[in-house]
């Protein structure tokens, strides 16, 4: 029982990171039809931001904020320099553009910072564990779950209650109509990138707190998983992305925890097979995007 509770905490914690990354992908996709494979590099850049801030002697809390800001700036810079020029291009051209951006950034990180992982050290008090009713639970997974839910609720508030959020939801339906109402589409797109960058930054903070290092390829794998999560949830559906992220993360941890070791090499295959089975039953994803898109 104790083992089960601990593994469930682990599962929710990892699922939460995937959910935030998937949501960032989905926000941008829903508005500009871009599957941003460079999203992982936004996360990596945020982590390097934390590393550099610590290296320059900033206190850890300030370094985290610096990392978040770095991720947002990177997301905005990406939109401005690479993706704005490609606005309206078809999905495949956009996808290839994002691959190019991703590769360029990876090489820049490698040559500009280091091909090796660099360490990120937070105060020991930030890790460690506590006990509830005789069950030991890690501080980092707990905090990451709280941060994740706060971020998701905050984003939900922005999307539901603010004009900027309404504009983003409207843009997902019909961005031309939004412009015909006089609302600056570029600004809405930029805000969506900034939000996706912020989510990637939060994911970077949690990721580095758990993993202790950042390397040029850091963002690739989690974003790959997040992409699977967005497809599972329903491409372009924000709620679906969050749900998909949690499902993929939980499947992954539970497979690691409870499958016999002899099946361990097939873990990813088993998780992906489960995703494919789900998609066969629900081809549009678990929570398909609400409205059909005009092309």
């Amino acid at each position, binding site marked *: 029982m104790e083992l089960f509770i601990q*593994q469930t905490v682990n599962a929710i914690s990892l699922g939460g990171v995937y959910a935030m990354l998937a949501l960032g992908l989905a926000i941008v996709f829903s508005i500009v039809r871009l599957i941003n494979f460079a999203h992982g590099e936004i996360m990596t850049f945020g982590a390097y931001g934390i590393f550099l801030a610590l290296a320059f002697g900033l206190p850890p809390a300030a370094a985290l904020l610096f990392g978040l800001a770095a991720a947002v700036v990177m997301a905005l810079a990406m939109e401005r320099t690479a993706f704005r020029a490609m606005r309206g291009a078809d999905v495949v051209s956009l996808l290839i553009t994002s691959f190019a951006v991703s590769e360029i950034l990876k090489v820049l990180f490698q040559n500009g910072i280091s091909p090796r992982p660099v360490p990120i050290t937070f105060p020991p008090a930030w890790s460690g564990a506590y006990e509830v009713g005789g069950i030991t639970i890690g501080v980092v997974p707990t905090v990451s779950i709280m941060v994740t839910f706060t971020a998701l609720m905050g984003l939900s508030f922005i999307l539901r209650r603010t004009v900027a959020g309404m504009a983003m939801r409207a843009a997902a339906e019909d961005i031309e109509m939004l412009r015909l109402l006089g609302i600056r589409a570029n600004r809405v797109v930029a805000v969506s990138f900034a939000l996706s960058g912020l989510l990637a930054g939060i994911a970077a903070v949690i990721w580095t707190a758990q993993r202790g290092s950042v390397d040029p390829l850091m963002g690739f794998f989690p974003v790959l998983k997040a992409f699977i999560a967005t497809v599972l949830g329903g491409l372009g559906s924000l709620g679906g992305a969050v749900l998909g992220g949690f499902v993929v993360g939980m499947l992954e941890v539970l497979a690691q925890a409870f499958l016999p070791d002899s099946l361990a090499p097939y873990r990813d295959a088993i998780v992906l097979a489960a995703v494919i089975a789900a998609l066969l039953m629900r081809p549009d994803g678990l929570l398909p995007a609400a409205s059909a898109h005009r092309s």
Partner: protein
Amino acid sequence: MKLKSMLLAAVGVAALSTAAMAEEYVIGVMSAQSGYLAPYDGPAYAGFQFCIDEMNAKGGLNGKHKVRTIVKDTRSDIAEGVKVVQEMLDGGAKFIVSSADADPTIAAAQITAADGVPTMTFAGTAPVLTQVGPHVFGSYPADNQQGAVLAAYARDEGFKQAWLVKSPDSAYTNGGPEYFGKAFEALGGKVLGESLYTLNQPDFSAIVTKIKAADPAPDVIVTWAWEPDFPALIKALRGAGVKTQVMGGDVMDTPTVRGLGEVVAGSVHTSGGFPDEGSAYADFIKRFEAKTGTTPDNNYYVNGCDIAHMIEQAVAAAGSTDPKAVSAAMANIENGKGVMSNFTFKGTDRMPLREVVVARISADGKKEFVRRAIADPATLPKP
């Protein structure tokens, strides 16, 4: 088939004509500039080229054979590696130094097998890599040697129950803990269990939770995980309150791992060498710093330099630069003189028997010398 033999003939002619034109010895070097091998190939190549340059300044290998290197980027891609090895052979290479891992080395050795061109890995340590043929050599103390020395140390320190964390995705991450386990059990210890992870696994919490729940509890956790997996694993372990001693392979011997702070303090790892004051190794570091301005902060630099020494001694013993003669001479070296440590190929599977250092990471992130030992060939776990 026809094409292949024509190609080989062309290569042969090219090699002959190059040899005829100059007394220069061409060494092809695979060096990944990007991808997962870049952190190892980069330093290894820098150290190798540094010592080759020093030798060339004195007239070449043994003062006779000037060396020209052909260096090609593989992007850590095996197919690209095969391609560049072929190009280097076409360019007259009579010795190939291959990337710092078993898999690309095995692929390269299959290309060089036709002409028996000696092929030596920068730092691949999986003993299986030399099984491609008599022309393939390791250079760094192999995983089974490291595992055996570390297991002997663990037993001497009174550890009884080990838990292995390994990844079947690479010969290194899988083999190291296994060799440790075999040697540990041969010395009377017990392996309680093992956990498998995948390279670049996002999350180690499930593994950690399992280890924590193990009953009886292990008193040492052994892994050959590299970055970024090792930092993630140790953070997860310590984060969950597991304080068990951690021991690992030489990939833990990096500034990144030492920079992790409190979570790694007290961890023990193997290493290929240790720059004691006044040693040849310490002198190498000084010379390298003076010339390049870079501090060699890991053993790949000095091991690269030792590869130059291995080639020099093999060529001297062979009395020629003929590939087959060099291979045969290399395999026969006994107690050859190196900078990081001496090396013996004779009686081994062409994975040189070398000293292994056991080191501990101190609380302030420094590397502390613990012991230096050579694995006993009699009890060395077989690949």
